[in-house]
């Protein structure tokens, strides 16, 4: 954009190793999986070329479409929750400069926990019969809930668990963004007579947008491939109410050993994620200042 050619060359030299490293490591896996997805693979036998057969089968597979909608629903719900709450928590932390280090550290602790533990933990807490969550609800005189066992509530519940775990992560990223905003702009806004709420809406939020999009990108790549929590708690159930594409693909591949079809699912999912990321990187350019 605005560097001389010499400078530009030096800058390319800085980003090349990262790109090369990635390409070196992922070229083969992607190529191999694409290849597999074009074959019918029986375990132990020789793969038979099937053209787009796996993909065609996928488009006819009701479970695929079900998984697609679940994936998108869970994705949008979780992303929205996490961005909103993450920004809120970041603003709180940003404002509370004197908060003790221990509390500050503990507040980001959920995403430090291993996903398997988070899953198991919530499995117990949310058990409709003997879980602490329903016990608390009952103490509060509220109706119990079936949480993960209800086909209607399983996705919101999983989204809540994920939000509990990953909101601090978003908050951490947003907090960083908050700290690198130009301070003099706030003085100008105060002079211009803007209230707190309006400063937030008109100054902080737009200035923060690139950071928020970044957080959204980082969350999207994980959320669209939603796996751990569901795998540990419901394995796609009840019924297939939480059978995300990634869960479905995994089970096809590693539990039912349909490797060709699973590869097609994985390639499709990767393409979807790539699409989402591309859309968001464009958005990121749009909101840059």
């Amino acid at each position, binding site marked *: 954009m605005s560097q001389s050619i010499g400078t530009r060359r030096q800058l390319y030299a800085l980003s090349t190793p990262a790109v090369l490293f990635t390409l070196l490591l992922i070229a083969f896996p992607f190529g191999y999986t694409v290849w597999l997805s074009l074959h019918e693979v029986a375990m132990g036998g020789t793969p038979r070329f099937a053209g787009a057969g796996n993909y065609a089968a996928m488009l006819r597979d009701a479970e695929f479409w079900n998984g697609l909608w679940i994936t998108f629903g869970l994705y949008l719900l979780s992303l929205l929750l996490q961005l909103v709450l993450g920004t809120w928590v970041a603003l709180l932390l940003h404002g509370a400069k004197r908060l003790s280090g221990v509390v500050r550290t503990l507040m980001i602790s959920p995403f430090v926990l291993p996903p398997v533990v988070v899953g198991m933990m919530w499995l117990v807490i949310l058990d409709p019969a003997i879980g602490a969550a329903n016990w608390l609800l009952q103490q509060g005189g509220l109706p119990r809930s079936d949480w993960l066992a209800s086909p209607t509530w399983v996705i919101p519940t999983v989204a809540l668990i994920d939000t509990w775990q990953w909101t601090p992560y978003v908050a951490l990223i947003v907090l960083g963004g908050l700290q690198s905003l*130009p301070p*003099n*702009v706030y*003085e*100008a*806004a*105060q*002079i*211009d*007579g*803007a*209230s707190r709420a*309006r400063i937030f809406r*008109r*100054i902080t939020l*737009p*200035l923060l947008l690139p950071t928020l999009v970044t957080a959204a990108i980082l969350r999207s790549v994980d959320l669209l491939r939603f796996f751990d929590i569901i795998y540990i708690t419901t394995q796609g159930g009840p019924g297939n109410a939480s059978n995300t594409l990634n869960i479905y693909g995994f089970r096809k591949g590693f539990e039912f050993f349909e490797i060709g079809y699973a590869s097609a699912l994985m390639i499709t999912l990767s393409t979807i994620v790539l699409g989402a990321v591309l859309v968001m990187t464009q958005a990121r350019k749009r*909101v840059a*200042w």
Partner: protein
Amino acid sequence: MAAIHLKALTKHYGAVTVIPGIDLEIHDREFVVFVGPSGCGKSTLLRIIAGLEPIDGGDLYIGDRRVNDVPPAQRDIAMVFQDYALYPHMSVFDNMAFGLEMRNTPRDEIARRVKRAAEQLHIADFLDRKPKALSGGQRQRVAMGRAMVRNPQVFLFDEPLSNLDAKLRGEVRTEIKALAQTLQTTMVFVTHDQVEAMTMADRIVILKGGVVQQVGTPQQVYNTPANAFVAGFIGSPTMNFFDARCVAGGLRLADGTLLPLPEARARTLGGREAVQLGVRPEHLRLQPAGPGAVPVQVRVVEPLGSDTLVYADVDGRRVVARVAPEDTPAAGDTVHLGVALERAHLFDTASGLALR
């Protein structure tokens, strides 16, 4: 109703005392210009008035209200920041409109005002651009425009024209004056430009190290500076100072030249032995050799077009005379400088106070 009153106001940054204690009254609808050397606390004062800096001691009143603890947003002030502080994510239009929007001005009224200010400042072509895509002077004009569209109790301008060319600066100066007349608002203006200070101010406040040296109309501070600092600071090129001994019949300069002093002036010396003689460059004239003329060798000649500056050394000090371009001597020439003593100033050597 929008007079500004600073009472024994003090300000420190950590261990650094920037304002050791200032008392100042700015009247309603007055146009006050702050001048002073770089780092003397002008911006700090503006920021204190705006409410952006906490006060360490004393009181600040705007109108009748003590505003020490009033947040900036409630002070109804418009300000041009020395570093512009434009909103990087907003277009020029939005930058200028923001303050009005915050005050719920109707859309069309905003558009009208922004357009007018943009035309006055010659930035109407850039209304859709982000600040990033503007030149330094254009940014400064946006900052200016942001204040000019408003109708606040007080305007604060922190060197708002420093990056504009002379012509544009002249135009904008006129617009600001017109604004001051139309809106009848109190204005506080910081500038390093002598012309700006002299032409715009109702009163000039000269600061040094956070301390007020003199407050007065432009004519007062120019013609009757309170002390040598003010005399040296106001006027460009700067006033020439000579050490002089008081002798019978006048002042004797270090090189022996005797300048005859009128009886009335001599009385102000109050029996001092030595004084400082201050002479503005335009009050030194080239004249033929003779009594009262100081012979000097010309060091540097700076033709400015409209006049020419002639530099020479007298008694180890550089002096400068402003002469008509036609009279220009060449560097190395020996010329004789006459002093228009009736226009010269006398200062106490120790305190620097004007003797009058």
